[in-house]
């Protein structure tokens, strides 16, 4: 479970920054970029606390 949560959280971060770079390079529209960033935000804000909790529990 933990590796999956970690991967989701990293995907969240990637979806936060990569779309803006794609938009900058004209490889993505503004609306698609905003949608991707919203998905990224949800991934990070859901997965990161879970990953942290798992990390704390194993300590």
């Amino acid at each position: 479970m933990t590796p999956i949560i970690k991967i989701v959280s990293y995907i969240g971060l990637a979806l936060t920054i990569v779309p803006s770079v794609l938009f900058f390079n004209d490889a993505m529209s503004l609306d698609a970029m905003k949608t991707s960033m919203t998905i990224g935000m949800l991934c990070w804000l859901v997965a990161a606390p879970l990953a942290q909790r798992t990390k704390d529990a194993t300590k």
Partner: protein
Amino acid sequence: MSKTQQTGDEATVTTGEFEREPVAKGALKGANKFWGMYAGEHAAGTEFMIGPLFLLAGVTLQNVFLGLLFGNLMAVLSWRFICAPIATKARFTLYHHLEKIAGKWLVLIYNLANGLLFCFLAGAMITVSATAVGIPFNMEMPTVEDFYPNSLTFVFIVLAVGLIIAFVASLGYEMVSRFANIASPWMVLVFLACGIVAYKQLGATSWAELNSLWSESIIFAQDGKSESTMGFWNVFLFGWFCNAAMHVGMADLSVFRFAKKANAGWATSAGMYVGHYMAWIAAAFMLAAQIKLNQDANPVPGPMANNVVGLAGIICVVVAGWTTANPTIYRAGLAFQAMAQTIFPTVSRFKATFTAGIIATIAGAFPAFAWQLLGFVGLYGTILAPIGGIIFFDWYFRRNGDAEAFQKSSPNSSFNIAVFLAWLIPVVPAFYLIVYKGYTAVNFVLPCWLITGLLYLAFSKKPKAA
């Protein structure tokens, strides 16, 4: 801007343990613990305000880039060479350290000033959050001309946001500080994304073009004029002293007392160059892009973030405002509690913190505090940082850096008049010149710090041993 967001590590650091004793060897932390803490801490809600305010003040693009580059460097050096060396030797909180020099009653006065200024700072953060929360309610956004609340909806939203923050802060900030810790990497990336998208929206392909777009934005924002109220040195001093109370003012003794070595002071560069460089410039570009695309020079963070990155930007503004206002109110509450307990020993932290939250919420309903953030931050440093001058001069010229003797020493009196006079003599005229004569606040921080320290040496005697 603010040194207010507390992460898990700092939570232990500032309030949990070793409040009246030197930090034990076993509790010391390596430098790596401080890097993430400072990076997250300075990605605050107010960063969305400060960058755009440079544009409105007519600062040239070159002065923004260079002034902040060198100003932030000086801030890092101040943490590393002024604050961290004393913190890692004395190993006391600012309050306990100051109490040994100035006595408990003077610490209370410092606490009152600190608490009130924290409330106004938190008020600006509540305003910032309210501009994002108000978007789905079609709230009429306050403009830079608004000193008073501009609509009933704005007041209701500020009240709702402020009371929630005050209530959560009163319960303690453990949960919020953990959430802030988790959210900070994401917030930093949102700031960066905002900058990238805004730059793209500006459509500049060269420095000359960017410079020209920037100048056009200033002219638009100033209704056809192009007047700069801040030159290179003002921006430089602002970058250096916007956290003056924390570095030269020594508030971060409470943080670095846990560091194994003074080298941990370099960790502040993460906060300065992520929060006070990248984020401020990104936020300034957001306003420039908004001016270009919408012919709107209103620097309201919620709509600006929404324009460039959508919902993620709105949530980022709310989270950044909330996670920084919350510990600010908590700290103000602790300061008020310490003060109130000398008269009413049973005053609870909940009541003191909630009172601080109410003051902050009322301040938040006045958008002027957010618009005047550049001046307010300078005033905050001018009032509080000189206390750090006393600590610095006392440490090197009165104690000769002898940590062991200092730890065993006791205050000369419960109200050290030498400290009080040394603090007031430069700060009162500076306050008058800033507030009533309109002088630029950050220009007074360094002179007040130096004069206070030197006056302290002139007025004080060698402290008695334990």
